[in-house]
């Protein structure tokens, strides 16, 4: 009896220990969802990170006609007089703003010219999602009145003032919404492309050598040890290596500073152990009889590898690719030195920029951390990484069955 009690206590302890890890995972997900889910929208994904300010005047050839402006029944406060609907929002940068939800096609706000010097009166129209900073309008006496951001107060008041006092619109100052992650998504895709393009051929070839050719001797075990040691190198050290060793390589390609190309090359080396291991695991599963069959039919060794062994190992290589993508998406420390932490809305391969993970680091390590945006990006990353994990598991199951 005593023994039974003791056993149950010990068992209970393992239940508690396991429950703790479930609690931690749940806490992470709960925190990210409660902070970030509300931010996730198409605006977040396609939007710029930096808000741009526009200053525009109603164009001279626009003739105002109140009867031409249509009805609107959606959200927000609508001015049937000026054809604009506004609402109060909190931006990804945590500011209170008055945002445009709808602009009628015949509204004066759709027919404007830029006042910003250098833009040469470029035609502009107020886009939905912009936040209004101030408006100049004409009152009944024909005087120009300045409606500042402070006087606007909120969306409802702005519409009320415009409806009651304005007889014409002169110009408007507005900001396109910021806090978007489009640039970082592109940078991440570039990084994935560059790193896989380089590490796949090197990694697969290495795995083929190690498994198909290498006999057990000192040199080969040294090669294997070198690759295994790469796994244990902290990612921040890869970053250090990137700026010293690989920077000159990117200079040949025309890079003048740290760049996404440099980040991609650094990650390519980081991915090598992953790619090599998953390829090798797939090669191990390919039955020896297939190789023997091909060789006895007169095929050379390299023909056997390319036409028999590799097609059988395709699932394993795919696993390596997926794990590699997951790693690139999640990597931050190695990129801090190599792609810089400057968020870039229009990254190119030779420009600086941040991947999604690095963007999180960038907005969290500043003076005012932006927890909401960081949580939203984290949530996006987690969904992708968990999906990759799921697919890898399915492939693994298929791989195990394929030659039984």
């Amino acid at each position: 009896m005593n023994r039974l009690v003791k056993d149950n206590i010990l068992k209970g302890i393992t239940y508690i220990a396991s429950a703790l890890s479930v609690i931690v995972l749940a806490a992470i997900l709960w925190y990210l969802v409660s902070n970030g889910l509300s931010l996730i929208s198409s605006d977040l994904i396609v939007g710029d990170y930096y808000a741009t300010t526009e200053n525009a005047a109603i164009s001279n050839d626009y003739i105002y006609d109140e009867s031409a402006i249509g009805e609107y029944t959606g959200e927000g406060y609508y001015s049937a007089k000026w054809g604009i609907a506004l609402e109060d929002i909190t931006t990804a940068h945590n500011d209170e703003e008055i945002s445009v939800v709808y602009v009628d096609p015949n509204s004066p706000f759709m027919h404007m010219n830029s006042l910003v010097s250098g833009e040469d009166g470029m035609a502009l129209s107020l886009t939905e999602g912009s936040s209004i900073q101030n408006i100049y309008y004409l009152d009944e006496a024909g005087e120009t009145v300045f409606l500042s951001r402070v006087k606007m107060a909120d969306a409802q008041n702005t519409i009320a003032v415009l409806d009651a006092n304005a007889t014409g619109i002169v110009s408007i100052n507005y900001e396109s919404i910021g806090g978007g992650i489009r640039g970082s998504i592109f940078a991440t895709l570039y990084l994935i492309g560059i790193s896989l393009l380089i590490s796949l051929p090197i990694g697969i070839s290495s795995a083929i050598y190690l498994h198909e050719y290498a006999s057990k001797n000192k040199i080969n075990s040294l090669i294997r040890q070198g690759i295994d040691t790469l796994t244990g190198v902290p990612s921040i050290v890869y970053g250090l290596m990137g700026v010293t060793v690989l920077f000159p390589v990117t200079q040949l390609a025309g890079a003048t500073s740290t760049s996404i190309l440099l980040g991609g090359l650094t990650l390519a080396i980081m991915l090598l152990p992953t790619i090599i291991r998953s390829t090798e695991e797939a090669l191990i599963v390919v039955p020896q009889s297939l190789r023997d069959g091909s060789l006895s039919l007169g095929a050379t060794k390299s023909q056997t590898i390319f036409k028999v062994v590799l097609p059988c190992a395709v699932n394993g290589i795919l696993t390596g690719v997926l794990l590699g993508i997951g790693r690139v998406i999640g990597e931050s420390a190695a990129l801090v030195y190599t792609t810089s932490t400057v968020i870039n809305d229009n990254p190119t391969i030779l420009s600086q920029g941040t991947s999604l993970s690095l963007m999180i680091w960038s907005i969290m390590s500043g003076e005012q951390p932006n927890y909401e945006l960081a949580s939203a990006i984290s949530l996006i990353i987690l969904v992708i990484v968990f999906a990759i994990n799921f697919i890898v598991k399915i492939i693994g199951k298929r791989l195990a069955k394929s030659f039984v």
Partner: protein
Amino acid sequence: MLIDKKRVKRNKALDKFFRGFFMAMAILSSSFIVIIVLFVCAKGISPFLPGYEYGQVDLISFLTGSIYRQDQGIYGVGFIIINTLISAFLALVISFPLSVLTALFIAKIAPKKLSAAMQSVVELLAAVPSVVYGVFASGVITGVVEWIASLFGITTFGGSSLLAVVLLLAIMIFPTLTSMSITAIRAVDPNLEQASLALGATKTQTNFKICLTAAKSGIFAGAILGLGRAYGEATAVAMVAGNKLFGPTFNPFDITRTLTSTMLAGLKETTGLDYDIRFSVGLVLIVVIFFSNWILNMVKKRIGRNSVA
């Protein structure tokens, strides 16, 4: 049968070429580790050599110093090394028992479905990128630390503290430790377990006394891997470390500074001593990891002597 001699010759040449190509790629892959160590060494050592362009730094005071102030040009990483060792070790102390118990639960105790579900939980925790753990740490763990500190009547720097770093690292190394332990426990010879059961031990006694003992070598290997990860963890740790200017830090509620958080602090400059000294810190990190692994592997050999798996 006709044999096209030219074709045979060409195929043979191609065969030779590919063999050489694959071998070259394998050598290239494994030479990166040498390149990494060589270049980080070369750049990391340069500030200590005479004739260094930004003013030579004294190696001894660098390695033993207890103040790190870039603004005053004082670089001492002695206390940072101690901080790094303390935080990684404490994280292991917290995470090790929990992960071994969880591994035992998954491998031996849990019903089949629950075991599979728990294994997925561990895999998901392993897949969470470190920067996401960092967001979680600065949002939740710092709050927990502040709350604990308030129970003792202590105020913290917004929760950034040694304790926050330790808790964060404990969570981050947990999946590594657990999955290595699961592998080790599953590899235990079933004959051993059956012998134990036949001698009248209960299933639970067998699990705790036989399986864990037989698997200890593999479990210890997981601990070594976990420690390595804890030393090298950068972005997440830097978010909650607080970067203290002097030390070492022993008070769990005080801010701390690790080697990696030092390397990530203030990345404005791209040349000069402040930039080069990061390589020296990186080199120290490599050396710390190397020596820690070396010592632990010796300990592992000693432990593993009477172990089976």
